[in-house]
């Protein structure tokens, strides 16, 4: 067992080395200094308390999305529609805050309601994909993709249409909420809202506990690996698949609500920020292990934030971060395959 874990670790490190190799080649192809590029990404992510806090700001929605995806992955689902679920969460949270803005509610309550609305929005969108999958036989990849497009259009329509600013419909989104409705931060200048950090930690912890030790998690695993057998074992597979979508939708919706209340303080055109797709990569790389996912998400968030320095200091395009992330996951998958083949060969084939 221990040996296996060590081998896994070694392969992980190998994947990282290969990914760095590829990005280095890409950098050299672009005639850019690789070492300086990596150093700047590191500085951009860890160079000061401020940027480190920004990494955490980016980590929160990413880890929320990822923890949702861990649930659907466990159920054997490829919830690619999570982008739309985040967007719907943001839309619902915005709707709630717009509705509550005038009411004389304590801000904490209003924000709480916005979170609840966001979760409801994400869950609604996820359940739609889930219903299409369980009752309509529409594969969740394609149902989800379609609904992603619909959610983007819905979002843009709201921003430029019914929810536009007085006079100036603008790419900059809806009118920012009153400051009292911003999720409070530690200090005036800081972006990090402790409450959102707490939500993210709670989310990933909840998913960890749920998947690891609960009947729900075990049954979900059974449904994910063999729905027919799960049914014969007395598990209502359809209901569990829907529950997985629901769980993911709630967390994705929460991520969207965080984007609205804690990061942008308004609804903007690409509110999901690609966290859903990034979360899928994190979940793959973390092999569905919640604690590992939290760490990988932190690494990815650091790459995203750190790469800001690339254009500033080196006049390089920061999509390098994406190249690094993508090749890391790719080599991880390839390495995993190679490792399994090696093990098989060692065991002398399969009967």
């Amino acid at each position: 067992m221990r040996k296996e874990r060590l081998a896994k670790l070694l392969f992980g490190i190998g994947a990282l080395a290969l990914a760095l190799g590829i990005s280095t080649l890409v950098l050299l192809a672009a005639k850019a200094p690789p070492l300086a590029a990596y150093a700047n990404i590191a500085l951009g992510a860890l160079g000061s308390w401020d940027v480190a806090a920004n990494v955490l700001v980016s980590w929160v929605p990413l880890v929320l999305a990822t923890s949702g995806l861990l649930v659907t992955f466990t159920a054997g689902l490829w919830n690619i529609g999570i982008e739309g679920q985040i967007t719907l969460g943001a839309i619902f949270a915005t709707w709630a805050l717009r509705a509550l803005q005038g009411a004389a509610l304590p801000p904490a309550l209003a924000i709480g309601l916005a979170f609840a609305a966001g979760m409801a929005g994400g869950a609604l969108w996820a359940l739609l994909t889930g219903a299409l999958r369980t009752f309509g036989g529409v594969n969740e990849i394609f149902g989800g993709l379609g609904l992603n497009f619909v959610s983007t259009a819905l979002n843009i329509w709201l921003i430029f249409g019914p929810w536009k600013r007085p006079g100036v419909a603008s790419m900059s989104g809806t009118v920012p909420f009153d400051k009292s409705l911003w999720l409070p931060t530690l200090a005036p200048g800081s972006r990090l809202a402790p409450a959102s950090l707490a939500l993210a930690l709670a989310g990933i912890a909840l998913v960890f506990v749920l998947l690891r030790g609960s009947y729900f998690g075990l049954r979900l695993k059974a449904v994910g690996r063999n729905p027919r057998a799960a049914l014969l074992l007395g598990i209502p597979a359809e209901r569990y698949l829907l529950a997985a979508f629901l769980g993911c939708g709630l967390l994705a919706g929460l991520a969207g609500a965080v984007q609205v209340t804690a990061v942008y303080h308004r609804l903007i055109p690409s509110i999901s920020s690609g966290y859903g797709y990034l979360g899928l990569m994190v979940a793959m790389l973390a092999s569905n292990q919640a604690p590992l996912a939290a760490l990988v998400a932190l690494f990815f968030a650091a790459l995203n934030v750190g790469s800001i320095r690339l254009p500033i200091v080196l006049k390089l395009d920061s999509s390098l971060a994406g190249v690094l992330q993508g090749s890391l996951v790719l080599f991880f998958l390839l390495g995993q395959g190679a490792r399994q083949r090696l093990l098989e060969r060692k065991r002398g084939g399969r009967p």
Partner: protein
Amino acid sequence: MTGDVLIVNLAGLLASAAPLIFAVIGETISERAGVINLSMNGMILLSAMGSFSVALATGSLAAGFLAGAAIGALVALVVAAAGISLRQSQVAVGFVLALLCRDLSYFLGNPVMGQVGPRLPPAPIPLLAGLPVAGPLLFRQDLMTYLSLLLVAGAWLFLFKTRPGLVLRGIGEKPEAAYARGARVKALRYLYTVLGGAIAGLAGPIYSLSVKAGWKGSISGLDGLGWIVLSITIFGGWKPFRAAFGCYLFALLQWLGLVLQPLLPGLPSQVLQVAPFPLMILTLLLVNLGKAEWVERSLATLPGPARRRLSRVLRALNATPPAALGTPFEED
């Protein structure tokens, strides 16, 4: 709108759907062989950028198109190696490549941003171009648009009317049976995945060297097309003509969106733009309904003749995917 205008607009749709057709047919071939190549979105961007760079550097359109096909083939090769030889989830690898290739195209494409490159000229066919209706509709297009039409027919002929096409369908349907009959399943899957990738890879240069000539990085307006391609492949039920119909329908709905904009001022402009997606979902729903258990259950409660008629309709609509799609096959 007069008839003439309608015809030229329809001719424009044929051209604007051409890259989609290459991508969808490429994906269809790959999926028919049992390999799902989910990397489309990034791959098209990368091949658009790469082929544009090559065409710009060499001044040769042909070199550009070749580069596009090569990039498509290369990306497909990674999917094939991971899925066939290393037995990793094709969906996972394809998805990662979709994101990776996109970022790669943005990063590497910086030097050619906004440059003016060569562009595929129209190539009216002598004599035929002068025909009424058919002339302006079909015979005043460019080379790749003609090829897109030939590709659909060619793919159909190959898949359904030739011996290798039969084997291709066989390895996607039941690889163990094809293997028992002497087909080298793994090698053929590699071949068709890479071939499908190369065909789909041509979508990139058709955009960057023709339909949307140029390269503008993240604002090129190509990000998202690959996901659309995958949707249309499903919509097309792995049949070339139905897939082509899907491409044209998509282009038509897009066009209707802007034609109807002044006529239906109350309609949000996004509605028709995203109409293809609910439509795709609806189609999937329809073709799958016959398989769903609850449908079977509720069908069972209907009176006999109605039940049989309904279930026959559902079965006719049903486009069954290749049975072994996405699953690895071991030869020993």
